[in-house]
């Protein structure tokens, strides 16, 4: 029993772990609620009386006890799952009442702690008598409680409580205080930087070489970096004592942390005199340690005994554990957590070498914290779902690997020789390593929120996720080749100028208000949006994106392949690749893949269905009907019937319809294979290790111009542009003239973008990444042939841009997030989560003409 200190005048101090289930034990009237109120936050305390009231409107209704405890256990479970300390205020004097609470603590891998309030029966009775609601409670109940409590005292620890504090008498209770203790595994306040080192297994020479390579001089890093060992320092290798000496001294001097491996654990048991089998290299350790002093062995024993199963570091962003750790165990304390940290999770099966088959926990890992571990030798350390195994089998002749954190750089040294013959060949454990493990429905389905760096949490509604799931599953390209979807773009505020619905004045004004002076006007191409992922070769596609065969992808706004025939896609990718190579961009951008945003023309290539059923159909119907209408009206007029107004109006409508037909025809031309197909890239989105979303547009366009120049096939097309200063009326006028000229020749319009690409307002709000100004003629395709008629225009001016703008910003933030995650080499599901979010938001209800 840990009665931590003897009663003193200033009162007992009770240490209570920050994440634990605290069970108050005491008879009715022993003062539990008062104690709880005094020492814990109100929200931490769950009282059975309160729960009784919740289910029955009467806190003393004993018939509601069963339901009340169901509620109490349920809430406690939710709190513990969320990692919140919970205090249960119920009598809990019977073992039967405590058992489910201990179970609950175990289930959530937190410490159960008992605080016993042992108060004489008379005092309890006195207190109850003073309470109106309990005055009638029979004395025998208190007597029974006290008796049961006394009986329980001796075996509380055996029941499973990890700490038991017994407070005797009203005075001791009155004077006691509670201090919150951090868990030993909680080192979130340490931010490093760290060098996390994989399984050493007695390879002292390699360890020294690696430490040297990492910059350590005699166990100390001049820049104050800290080494973190993932365990398995001992066994198999040539110099376990040397390794222990080095690591122990670094830990002692505060230059290193160390978590235990299963090999330390077993050796520790040996040192404590337990019988263990001298297998898997333990014999070597024992033999080597025989030559050391008894004092050193004692030190080693204490060192091993003091090791904490795993550490949570760097504000919770990093977890180090020998055999890895699922998210729900991070920072938890239980035998189960320790067992997982030491041994990992096994399926119960054994493989052909007689070794246990491990459960692929990393494959299912979806946590935010990076988990760095060792334990299973792999040929090469690679990230999988934000976890990485650093055991590269140095003792088997592989390498000793370290991970620099937060840089996420790998540093390794080769083994000097094979020190120990492996039982089985090294291979990557993570199943599907390069097949790319499929995504999980839980990553995308239902109502959810996606955390973004640029705009916080973005919520996605269930019905939108459902629609996105259907399109993503049935029509999209392989998600591994779909690392981005373009956001929707808001149009400019509705024009004030006569005869226009959209006009650049408003776009320039909007940026001026947002404090953006320098903008670029880019010609809006008359095609369909296309995103291209181009890999340098099939090998890159395989190694970086995990696909066998394709060398990239070319897809639409909703992630569908642009061409049904993969060979056509490859042909385009090949032309892009050739241009990238000729322009020297691989080297210049230090990459072997490139993601770019583009417009593919003609529009008729992809939208032919829509063209036929809607646009051309309207053209055909109007073309067929007006000659007859006009002839009839002219006939009537010739007979002297007064149809002047009607005739003029129909002539006007006929002209509008003809203008409409002319407008959509500009988007159509006949193509033969790739002849006639044009691709106009306008932004480089990402390359290896970098998102280019923040690269200023002039630099972007300069790179793209070079790409276009070096395309010998006529596929690539440049984007015309004009730079405008929104604060200079002269420059704004030039911008307007440029747009008038562009659209006057039948152009679709332009997109105005802040030159600096990723910009925030003074108050920190994200600025729209682009505003479209569509041409007057083009808008006939959107608002109908007759939209320019004054009475139509007047009504159409009432459009509601707010939701579209908000949607554009949310999709933009998700797109940026996808690119950032891609650049950081985050796992597929993380990138896909953001990409899926964009698709889901695209199905939100918003005026489709905006």
């Amino acid at each position: 029993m840990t009665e931590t200190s003897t009663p003193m005048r200033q009162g007992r101090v009770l240490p209570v772990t920050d994440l634990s289930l605290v069970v108050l034990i005491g008879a009715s009237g022993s003062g539990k609620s008062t104690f709880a109120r005094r020492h814990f936050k109100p929200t931490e305390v769950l009282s059975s009386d309160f729960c009784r009231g919740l289910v029955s409107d009467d806190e003393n209704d004993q018939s509601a006890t069963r339901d009340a405890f169901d509620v109490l256990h349920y809430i406690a479970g939710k709190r513990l799952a969320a990692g919140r300390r919970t205090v249960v205020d119920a009598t809990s004097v019977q073992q039967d009442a405590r058992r489910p609470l201990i179970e609950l603590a175990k289930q959530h891998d937190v410490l159960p702690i008992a605080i016993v309030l042992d108060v004489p029966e008379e005092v309890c009775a006195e207190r109850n008598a003073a309470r109106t609601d309990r005055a009638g409670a029979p004395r025998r109940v208190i007597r029974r409680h006290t008796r049961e409590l006394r009986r329980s005292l001796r075996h509380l620890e055996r029941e499973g409580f990890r700490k038991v504090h017994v407070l005797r008498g009203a005075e001791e209770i009155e004077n006691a205080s509670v201090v919150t203790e951090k868990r030993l595994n909680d080192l979130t306040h340490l931010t490093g930087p760290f060098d996390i080192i994989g399984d050493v297994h007695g390879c002292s020479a390699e360890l020294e070489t690696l430490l040297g390579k990492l910059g350590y001089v005699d166990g100390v890093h001049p820049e104050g970096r800290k080494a973190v060992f993932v365990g398995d320092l001992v066994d198999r290798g040539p110099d376990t004592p040397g390794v222990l000496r080095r690591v122990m001294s670094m830990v002692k001097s505060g230059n290193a942390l160390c978590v235990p491996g299963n090999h330390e654990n077993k050796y520790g048991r040996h040192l404590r005199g337990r019988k263990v089998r001298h297998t898997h290299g333990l014999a070597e350790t024992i033999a080597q340690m025989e030559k050391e002093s008894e004092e050193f062995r004692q030190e080693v024993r204490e060192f091993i005994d003091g090791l904490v199963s795993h550490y949570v570091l760097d504000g919770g962003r990093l977890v180090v554990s020998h055999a890895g750790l699922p998210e729900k165990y991070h920072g938890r304390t239980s035998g189960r957590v320790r067992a997982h940290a030491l041994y990992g999770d096994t399926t119960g099966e054994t493989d052909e070498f007689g070794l246990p088959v491990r459960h692929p926990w990393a494959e299912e890992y979806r946590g935010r914290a990076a988990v760095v571990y060792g334990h299973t030798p792999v040929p090469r350390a690679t990230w999988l779902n934000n976890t990485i195994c650093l055991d590269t089998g140095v003792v088997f002749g592989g390498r000793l690997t370290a991970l620099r954190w937060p840089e996420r750089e790998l540093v390794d040294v080769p083994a000097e020789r094979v020190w120990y013959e492996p039982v089985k060949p090294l291979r990557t454990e993570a199943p599907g390593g390069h097949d790319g493990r499929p995504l999980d429905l839980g990553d995308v389905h239902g109502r959810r929120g996606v955390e973004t760096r640029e705009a916080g949490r973005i919520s996605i509604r269930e019905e939108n996720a459902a629609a996105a799931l259907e399109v993503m599953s049935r029509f999209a390209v392989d998600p591994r080749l779909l690392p981005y979807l373009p956001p929707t773009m808001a149009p400019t505020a509705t024009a004030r100028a006569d005869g226009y619905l959209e006009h650049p004045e408003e776009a320039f004004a909007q940026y001026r208000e947002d404090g953006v002076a320098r903008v670029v006007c880019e010609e809006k191409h008359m095609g369909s949006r296309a995103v291209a992922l181009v890999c340098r070769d099939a090998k890159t596609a395989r190694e970086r994106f995990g696909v066998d065969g394709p060398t990239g992808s070319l897809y639409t706004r909703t992630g569908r392949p642009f061409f049904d025939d993969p060979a056509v896609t490859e042909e385009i990718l090949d032309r892009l690749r050739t241009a990238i190579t000729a322009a020297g961009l691989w080297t210049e951008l230090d990459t072997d893949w490139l993601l770019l945003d583009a417009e593919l023309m003609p529009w008729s290539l992809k939208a032919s269905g829509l063209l036929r059923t809607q646009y051309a159909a309207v053209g055909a119907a109007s073309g067929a009907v007006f000659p007859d209408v006009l002839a009839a009206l002219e006939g009537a007029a010739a007979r002297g019937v007064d149809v002047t107004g009607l005739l003029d109006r129909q002539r006007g409508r006929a002209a509008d319809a003809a203008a409409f037909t002319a407008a959509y025809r500009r988007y159509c031309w006949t193509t033969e294979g790739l002849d006639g197909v044009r691709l106009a890239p306008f932004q480089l989105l990402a390359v290896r290790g970098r998102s280019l979303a923040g690269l200023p547009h002039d630099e972007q366009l300069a790179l793209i111009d070079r790409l276009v120049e070096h395309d010998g096939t006529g596929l690539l097309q440049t984007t015309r542009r004009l730079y405008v200063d929104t604060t200079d009326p002269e420059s704004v006028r030039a911008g307007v003239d440029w747009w008038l000229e562009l659209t006057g020749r039948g152009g679709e319009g332009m997109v105005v973008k802040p030159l600096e690409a990723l910009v925030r307002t003074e108050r920190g709000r994200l600025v729209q990444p682009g505003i479209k100004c569509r041409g007057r003629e083009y808008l006939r395709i959107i608002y109908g042939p007759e939209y320019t008629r004054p009475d139509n225009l007047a009504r159409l001016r009432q459009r509601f841009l707010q939701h579209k703008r908000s949607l554009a910003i949310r999709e933009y933030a998700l797109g940026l997030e996808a690119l950032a995650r891609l650049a950081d080499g985050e796992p597929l599901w993380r990138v896909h989560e953001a990409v899926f979010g964009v698709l889901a938001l695209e199905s939100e209800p918003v005026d489709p003409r905006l």
Partner: protein
Amino acid sequence: MFLTITTTGTAERPATDLGFLLHKHPDKAQAFSTSCGTAHVLYPEADDQRCTAALLLEVDPVALVRRGKGKGRGGAPDAALAQYVNDRPYAASSLLAVALSSVFSSALRGVCHARPELPGQASPLRIAVPALPARGGPGLVRRLFEPLGWTVTAEPVPLDEEFPEWGDSRYVRLELESDSLTLAEALRHLYVLLPVLDDAKHYWVTSEEVDKLLRAGEGWLSGHPEQNLITSRYLARRWSLTRQAKERLELVRLAEADDSEVDELDNAVAPEAETEAGAEAGAEAGAAGTGDGAEGKPVSLAAQRRDAIVTALRESGAARVLDLGCGEGQLVQELLKDTRFTEIVGVDVSVRALTIAARRLKLDRMGERQAARVTLRQGSLVYTDKQLKGYDAAVLSEVIEHLDLPRLPALEYAVFGTARPRTVLVTTPNAEYNVRWETLPAGHVRHRDHRFEWTRAQFGQWAHSVAERHGYDVGFRPVGPDDPEVGPPTQMAVFTLRATRGEGASGHESRNTRNDKRRDECGDEDEKEATAA
């Protein structure tokens, strides 16, 4: 939105009598306000020999959109229910029919107070509709009008003369001529048949008006050889269209984002399923006699497939069954009939398919005990799904061919690698058999959405490699008549999990022993952590 009615006459029976019949004076241009816009009636020619009345409906396209009920946030009109780019202002659609009935209501009823004898007389009539939307093309136009006594000229209108490769539009230039019909009959024909040919977007027309349209069919509709088509285009489609439109708004928007038609994305449910339970789409429905039932009545291939699946499931002893890609729930319905299947989970990626399945199964009216056996939920087979673990059997009936080949490994992993039911049944078309479908052009797949169709060898190769990778045994069964040359129309693979992988009861046992052993190994580690904390 425009049509002309011409009649010819003589000095004794002047053509201008048309003015009396229509109750509109030939020397005036008159405007009438109707529910769909302003209708104008005027006469481009009017003398004794020849008189033509023109009906011109000016539809206000902006009002049309803004009137729509589907409002997005901020009061803006939502999605494709309402398009500003719309043929309504130009084509002779149901709107024109409504205008016709309101402007010429007495003529339609055959009433003429000034000249009561006129409506009963047949006269030479020529009706011209320059832009008539005609789903079914000139052929259907002729089939609809010719039996009523019209001489029909129906010329298709090309979509765009500049792009002849696009072919014809859905519009025809229609001319009807007859000497034997009264004007009232002619108007009633138009009134009913214009919307039938238009056959679209009935949400423009209120249900009340649809009923009126049907009343106008009295006297000629019952004997019409295309009566079924005429009535079904009205009755069967009007509710489902509006319902369907509401159910798929999210997909409509995604299609719009991609400049595609919604049917390109929203094609998980065959259109027939909306109206006719158990309808089968595509070539398979067209080819009867694929198998014979006990009474010699042909049994559809789909029914034979379900039989084969249920038989295989019974043999496997499965009680808890997944129907992955359950579509409209036909198999779920079949499985519910056998109580040995205690838990049936239908999973589909299409929310609309699931809605229809729930409707078909009458889930909301099913008894609790029965309802407890069945669950329908959205899921996707290219994502792993924890909720699919632990079932006895999974059925993938006509599912894999709806997936692009590069995404098949994801399905394979989700089903065989993660869900790992003891039995997996996979059915898919046998491409070799396609030559036996009379209605299927050579080289075509059976369903528009089939991404591939495999021969027996291809399917066998895939199935064997899947079985090998994931520890299953696999066998094959024909479904439908097993043609000696090309095999059966449907092929089915039956996968059975190999017992040796340590799954099942013995596996659990070994896991427990293993845990006990590990607990021994850990020894006092539990206490260890306690003191550490």
